[in-house]
């Protein structure tokens, strides 16, 4: 049992099925994309209890009892409109992952997570374009729509921070 986009869902799967395959092949939620299936591109990013995870590196079993939000469930969200306005996409294949990742990234930031470009890790730095680029660097865009993506996140970061859920500690 898990909750996917607010809907309680029961899945009967063998234990090795990844969350990504569970979403795409079993729940037919094809908005989440498979770019590499090995944790290197970010196309499969979804939110689990408000944190961004790579669905290809997560077993479906691991999210038992938790809340999964995919691109189909995030909206309507101001970041989506900002992506359209700022042209944060070309082929669109990375876009669902970028949007989920950005939402999760802002939530992390709001809860004080530092990044490697943060000078003083005892304070929470502003979400500058440099911080955004660093924190989003796990999401590849082969079309190179990076400028538009950063602009869309900059535009929306304050609103996203307002909306960010309280993050519970990561279960061991």
């Amino acid at each position, binding site marked *: 049992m898990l909750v996917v986009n607010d809907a309680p869902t029961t899945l009967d799967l063998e234990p090795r099925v990844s969350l990504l395959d569970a979403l795409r092949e079993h729940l037919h939620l094809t908005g989440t994309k498979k770019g590499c299936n090995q944790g290197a591109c970010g196309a499969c990013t979804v939110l689990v209890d408000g944190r961004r995870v790579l669905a290809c590196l997560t077993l479906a079993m691991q999210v038992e009892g938790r809340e999964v939000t995919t691109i189909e469930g995030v909206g309507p969200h101001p970041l989506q409109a900002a992506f359209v306005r700022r042209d944060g996409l*070309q082929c669109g294949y990375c876009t669902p992952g970028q949007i989920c990742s950005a939402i999760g990234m802002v939530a992390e930031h709001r809860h004080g997570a530092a990044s490697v470009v943060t000078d003083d890790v005892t304070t929470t730095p502003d979400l500058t374009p440099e911080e955004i680029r660093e924190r989003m660097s796990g999401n590849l865009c082969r079309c190179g*729509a990076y400028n538009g993506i950063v602009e869309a996140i900059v535009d929306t970061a304050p609103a996203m921070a307002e909306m960010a859920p309280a993050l519970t500690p990561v279960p061991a």
Partner: protein
Amino acid sequence: MSTLSDRPRNSVVGEAVPHESAALHVTGRALYTDDLVSRTRDVLHAFPVQAPHAHALVTRLDVTPAHAVPGVVRVLTADDVPGVNDAGVKHDEPLFPSEVMFYGHAVCWVLAESLEAARLGASAVVVDYEPLPSLVTVTDAIAVASFQGAQPHLERGDVEAGLDRSTHVFSGDFEFAGQEHFYLETHAALALVDENEQIFVQSRTQHPSETQEIVAHVLGLASHEVTVQCLRMGGGFGGKEMQPHGFAAIAALGATLTGRPVRLRLTRNHDMTMTGKRHGFHATWRVGFDGDGRLQALDATLTADGGWSLDLSEPVLARALCHIDNAYWIPDVRVNGRIARTHKTSQTAFRGFGGPQGMLVIEDVLGRCAPLLGIAAADLRRRNFYSAGQATPYGQPVRHPERVVTAWDQVLTTSDFAARTAEVTAFNLAHEDSKRGLAITPVKFGISFNLTAFNQAGALVHVYKDGSVLINHGGTEMGQGLHTKMLQVAATTLGVPLPTVRLAPTRTDKVPNTSATAASSGADLNGGAVKNACDQIIERLRTVAGGRLGINPADVRFEGGQVHGVGDPSACIPWAELVRQAYFQRVQLWAAGYYRTEGLHWDSSLMQGEPFKYFSYGVAATEVEVDGFTGAYRTRRVDIVHDVGESLSPLVDIGQIEGGFVQGAGWLTLEDLRWDTGDGPTRGRLATQAASTYKLPSFSEMPEVFHVSLLQDAHEDGVVYGSKAVGEPPLMLAFSVREALRQAAAAFGPPGTSVDLASPATPEAVYWALEGARAAGTKAEHRHLVEGSHLVEGGHGIVPAQPGPDAHALHPISERWANGEAADAGAAGAVDDESTGPGEHVGAHR
């Protein structure tokens, strides 16, 4: 009828509208080929059996163990092919090979109820191989003269005389790497057999018509029995121009034999190990300059690393030869081209299609020679620009050469180039362990397919009785915004608001015989066809409106969904009302449009003609900072001015320029394809077959400051609404990054140090380059001959190879059919004539 390039006032073209699928992308509703699987019942999944040898004979293939794996339904082998066992148009790419030609070559495919079962089935198949000697590097192939296809030769003037009159003669060699496309969506196809045995293939292909043709010849069917549809692609970049056909054919064959839909989707490792990439090249050259640094002569031999089959290597090589001049006037030129045959993936189209490789050679030459001539690299480049009245080495007059000067001057101004050059110099004086470089480079890129025949396109435009419009054209969407532009073109020509027009997916049963969406020409060609169809409809509606308004039809205007007389917007008819009236008057409300680019001619045997409609221009200035301990660097600032004519869609165009630049910078600085060149059992294996080992540009490598402007007042006559193509040319703006790195590395040595920089210029490569510069400092008197560097001044130096007496100078194999020559002539020109076989399907490329 207005001419093609005249743009009406208040037109929808030119508006900065979002990508037509943007709303679908941000909500995850946009469908890609593999997303259709969950909407299709009873799908079988395909998985390949890949050979673990670079070159081997298949001595035994036993598929029976696979059938013991639960869920396995069928194993596809060569025996199953009812038509031609071939995945290409040149008959040198067996779909099921009996001779393995590269590590990872698929010898057969397993179909099963689940992907997992197919994978297990594939690992159960028993294959025995007899390994054969293999050639893995381009230099291996050159050493034993393993070449394939045509060996073009481009010559103007007298190179020897040009070198004789030069004050400075240098020679060198240069080997540079290819590039993996890494479109984020891997290859996929979903095939099913429709009613009446009609084959329907959903494929992510840039060339649906050719996918249709290959599927048909593999299945032994006629083209009208096969329909190919491409909804959209998650990136293409040329990698889906030739490569999708075989995969579509496997899926279609499986569907035919089992009666069930078959899905083939490559994993990332499959995709990287099985599909072609950008060609790496080897170049040898001699160049002469006069005392002022003006280019006098260039003698070069370019060898493209073609991989195991010909694929698009011939036209790629031709484009490389046609771009070795970049934006520079070189009076006496001789360039020879060859395609090495190696045991690697079959290298193919990649954004720029050989153009970047040709241009990289001359930019490398200028970057290396500038310090030796004692001329700043920027001045050396500027000094050699084409001027009005000059022509390229292949005889095409260079129109609008002043545009590159305008763009250059604009970048110098907006980037504050002079002041920042001084700052860089000051920084370098003050810092021993880090250095900066600031470089500016131009781009001139020819637009059109080299092969004239491909410069045609079709479109289908329907106006329904309620006034709504549905368009269809032969181009495919891979993120480049072609569909967005086509909607804008239709709305402009019909004079209706953008939402009135909708676009239907690209299908071969709507528009036949299309060319690949490639060569940056998608908008030029399909835009011409869409406009032509809309013009036909407008002409008919004009008569209806003229009658109703009581005016001369020629005076009727269509604007913003209203139809009125010229200069009299008061008496107007709403578009939908006029359409309805036209229907009742039995006026045809749909049209098939057609376009062909006029004024092109090209003789590939002579390498002479005017193959391009026009040139696209651009200029970029880039500043980098390099760390002297590690070679690590960052890009501090990029300024670009690029010529897209009068933009059809500025948001799309700026995105293409930024994205092209980023991808070019990836090719030149980060992306490092490594094959196992050792003699062990994994010889020929691609070692970098995942994003974990193949470094792609990410957010972290983005320039800290990135300014892009479109060149103003750049209307292009004779092209749809005055626009220019944009897909490929911006990639080559990234030469500025490489040249900035070279200059920064040089700053670690004494003034005048010439730096030999490997490509890609990874941090490691930059480190060795700056080490070389430092070494030059310790023996300053020999600065012209840095140890280990392949650059020689004066004398005969490194003399480029000249074609042998039996070198093939006829039309490339890929153009035989187009030229009415026998397709199966044994005189295929390939050194290795296994590469051709009998065939009636020989097609042509670019």
